[in-house]
């Protein structure tokens, strides 16, 4: 909608290419192995191209299935793609909606006009919708579609949001949603978009609010990014509005740039207050998972479904996420799949904004990262506290920046791979030293030196890989190289010890288990293979020494256990790979529920 006309054709072409590529893959896979799932070819759920992808891919699936003699039903596709109901309606142009319960005809007896072919198709521009005349579509979100409309009774322009069928599960949820919207209509604050009306029409739940025509904050990020003080002022304003609503008992739960509208005078206004919350409460019901928040901006207590923990600090996290996007030019969490994004939201701290944009003021970055703390107790307790802190920043007063312990904690969460390795290596190095000085009866200075050398090399290798990772080296290649490096170091260490009976052999299964944290079965198998190779190499070396009849191999008894050890390593790899497979299956299920 906001594209300059010149780029339009290029955009259309790139969209057509993208759709074409996905469909060609889908059809090839269909011919090769039968039954690929459309859902696997769609990409991230918040992709603006998703409706176009769904339309072509689902249309293709319908045709292929019809060719195979099946009769795909509209109902099935509505269930799979609840947020593309309009697309599904186009794919089944002549199937009437038989699934819907009959509309309550007494609700609006004078104005109801049921002449649309299907009541589940959202109305389009120019149509009449109750007392509203729809003028144009303003945008769509997970929950519904927003139109500019004219209230014919009061003759004023409003924004009207239709809640899509499927966003709220049953009549109880719809009734609660209406009550909640009615309560939210009482909110009166210059920076909150006021709700005028809520109701149901032609089977659609809708509410109307003041029309704010300056676009969303997402369209204005650039102007704030250049001016940190303006950014701080913006978040302070929003925080005061959020504080007002929090005091009235409303938690927003879905604060993000798209939910902040900028009016003609440039003043920000928070929209959808109190609505995500009700939908969230319903999230154990079908398909409403999509309104549980937006993964890229989500607080961990939302991502884990810990409803008890949701409170004002959840909205502080949301404000921090907006600030993060303003400063860093991207949302705090973003990965290829929803599952990984949610994992990131739960476990990993976002990269400090200054890594992406070095000119971000340190104090503002502290404030931002404190909002994004994982534990609600570590954030600012209320939006007001955040607003006050931002006010201090704007005035140049010292802020209550968090101490070194908090920074260390953040680092640990942000770079778990590095921290785990360095801590493990440090510990082993320390224990080697302790053993050498106090425990061992026959200290061997040369062996100690070599062990420490390998440990040092390993640590250096870890730091090198971290550096490569930060430079956004190819993920798969890097992970593979990292595993090879780890196994090589471990094997070298064991070789120096010249002893196959050492407890350090536990390092191999440990690495297999740790490789599961990457959620790639391929990497687990790679690690397992390398571990077995490393062990077999050690075994061969030991045998060689033994053959010469000289040093090493003090315990020939250990040899028969070697085959058992190799089998156990393979088994360990199998178990971890299975666990990864199951977690991914759950992740896929979650992704489907998030909105097809």
């Amino acid at each position, binding site marked *: 909608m906001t594209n300059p006309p010149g780029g339009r*054709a290029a955009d*259309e*072409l790139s969209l*057509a290419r993208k759709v074409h590529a996905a*469909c060609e893959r889908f*059809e090839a896979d269909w011919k090769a192995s039968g039954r690929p799932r459309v859902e696997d070819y769609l990409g991230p759920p918040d992709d603006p191209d998703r409706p176009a992808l769904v339309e072509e891919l689902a249309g*293709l699936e319908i*045709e292929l299935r019809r*060719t195979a003699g099946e009769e795909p039903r509209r109902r099935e596709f509505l269930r799979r793609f609840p947020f593309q109901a309009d697309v599904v309606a186009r794919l089944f142009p002549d199937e009437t909606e038989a699934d819907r319960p009959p509309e309550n005809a007494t609700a609006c007896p004078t104005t109801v006009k049921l002449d649309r072919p299907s009541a589940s198709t959202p109305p389009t521009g120019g149509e009449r919708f109750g007392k509203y005349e729809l003028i144009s579509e303003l945008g769509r979100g997970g929950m519904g579609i927003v139109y500019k409309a004219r209230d014919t009774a009061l003759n004023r322009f409003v924004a009207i949001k239709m809640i899509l069928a499927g966003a709220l599960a049953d009549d109880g949820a719809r009734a609660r949603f209406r009550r909640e919207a009615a309560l939210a209509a009482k909110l009166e604050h210059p920076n909150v978009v006021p709700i005028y009306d809520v109701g149901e029409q032609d089977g659609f739940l809708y509410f109307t609010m003041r029309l704010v025509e300056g676009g969303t904050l997402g369209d204005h990020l650039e102007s704030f990014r250049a001016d940190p003080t303006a950014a701080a002022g913006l978040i302070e304003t929003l925080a005061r509005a959020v504080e007002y609503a929090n005091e009235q008992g409303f938690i927003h739960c879905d604060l993000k740039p798209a939910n902040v509208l900028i009016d003609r005078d440039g003043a920000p206004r928070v929209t959808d207050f109190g609505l995500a919350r009700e939908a969230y409460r319903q999230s154990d019901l079908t398909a409403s998972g999509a309104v549980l928040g937006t993964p890229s901006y989500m607080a961990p207590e939302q991502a884990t479904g810990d409803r008890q923990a949701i409170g004002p600090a959840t909205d502080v996290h949301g404000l921090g996420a907006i600030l993060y996007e303003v400063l860093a030019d991207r949302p705090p969490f973003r990965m290829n799949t929803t599952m990984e994004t949610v994992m990131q939201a739960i476990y990993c701290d976002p990269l400090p904004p200054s890594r992406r944009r070095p000119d971000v003021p340190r104090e503002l970055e502290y404030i931002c990262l404190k909002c994004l703390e994982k534990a609600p107790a570590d954030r600012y307790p209320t939006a007001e506290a955040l607003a006050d802190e931002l006010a201090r920043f704007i005035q140049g007063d010292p802020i209550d920046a968090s101490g070194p312990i908090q920074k260390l904690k953040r680092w640990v969460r942000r770079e778990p791979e590095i921290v785990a390795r360095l801590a493990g290596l440090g510990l082993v190095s320390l224990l080697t030293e302790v053993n050498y000085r106090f425990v061992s009866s026959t200290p061997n200075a040369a062996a100690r030196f070599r062990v420490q050398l390998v440990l040092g090399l390993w640590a250096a290798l870890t730091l090198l890989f971290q550096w490569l990772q930060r430079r956004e080296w190819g993920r798969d290649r890097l992970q593979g190289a990292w595993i090879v490096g780890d196994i090589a170091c471990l094997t070298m260490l064991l070789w120096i010890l010249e002893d196959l009976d050492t407890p350090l052999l536990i390092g191999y299964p440990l690495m297999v288990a740790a490789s599961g944290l990457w959620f790639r079965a391929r990497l687990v198998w790679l690690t397992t293979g390398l571990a077995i190779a490393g062990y077999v190499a050690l075994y061969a070396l030991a045998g060689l020494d033994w053959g010469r009849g000289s040093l090493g191999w003090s315990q020939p008894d250990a040899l028969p256990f070697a085959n058992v050890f190799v089998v156990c390593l393979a088994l360990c790899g199998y178990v971890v790979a299975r666990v990864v497979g199951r977690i991914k299956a759950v992740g896929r299920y979650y992704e489907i529920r998030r909105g097809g």
Partner: protein
Amino acid sequence: MSESDQGSVTHWIGDLKVGDLAAARPLWERYYGKLVVLARARLRDLRKTGAEADEEDAALSAFNSFCAGAALGKFPKLDDREDLWKLLVVITARKAFAQAGRERRLKRGGGRRAVEPDPEAGGLELIAGDEPTPEFAAMVAEEFQRLLDALPDDGLRDVALRRMEGYTCDEIAERLGCARRTVARRLDLIRKTWSHVEEPAS
């Protein structure tokens, strides 16, 4: 509407009204028949230097089959508003017109102010009248080759060629053993790619 009003391909290049279709079809078929024959001849001339490469020349072999089709009375349909032939001729005509305009401006020098013809209407007749000129046919052939090269893969080229030979979507889908939707989607991508290829030149 008199016969002379429709004596020009600009009617089907420009805004073709549904009612004119029946009258325009014989004209189009005559025009098409001459165009492909002329274009093939020009391509042949151009390729004379490397005569043995003829068999592998996709554009030439395409024109061979266009000619063969036309000889058998098989013509691309005119009623498709987004027909690839129409696109090809429009792109070529615009290009030719732009070239002619440049030459005119060069010749004109200072002084007299000439009326710039509208490229969408009368101006086209200068280049693409009711009879295709050999020069125009040569440009069509060249442009055709360029557009074919602009397509990213053989799957798309295959669909483009068959479509230009006058096959329907259903026939193409059956021949290629793929979904009808796939043919429609590829055609859509072909049109978008070609329209986009044209833009920087205009």
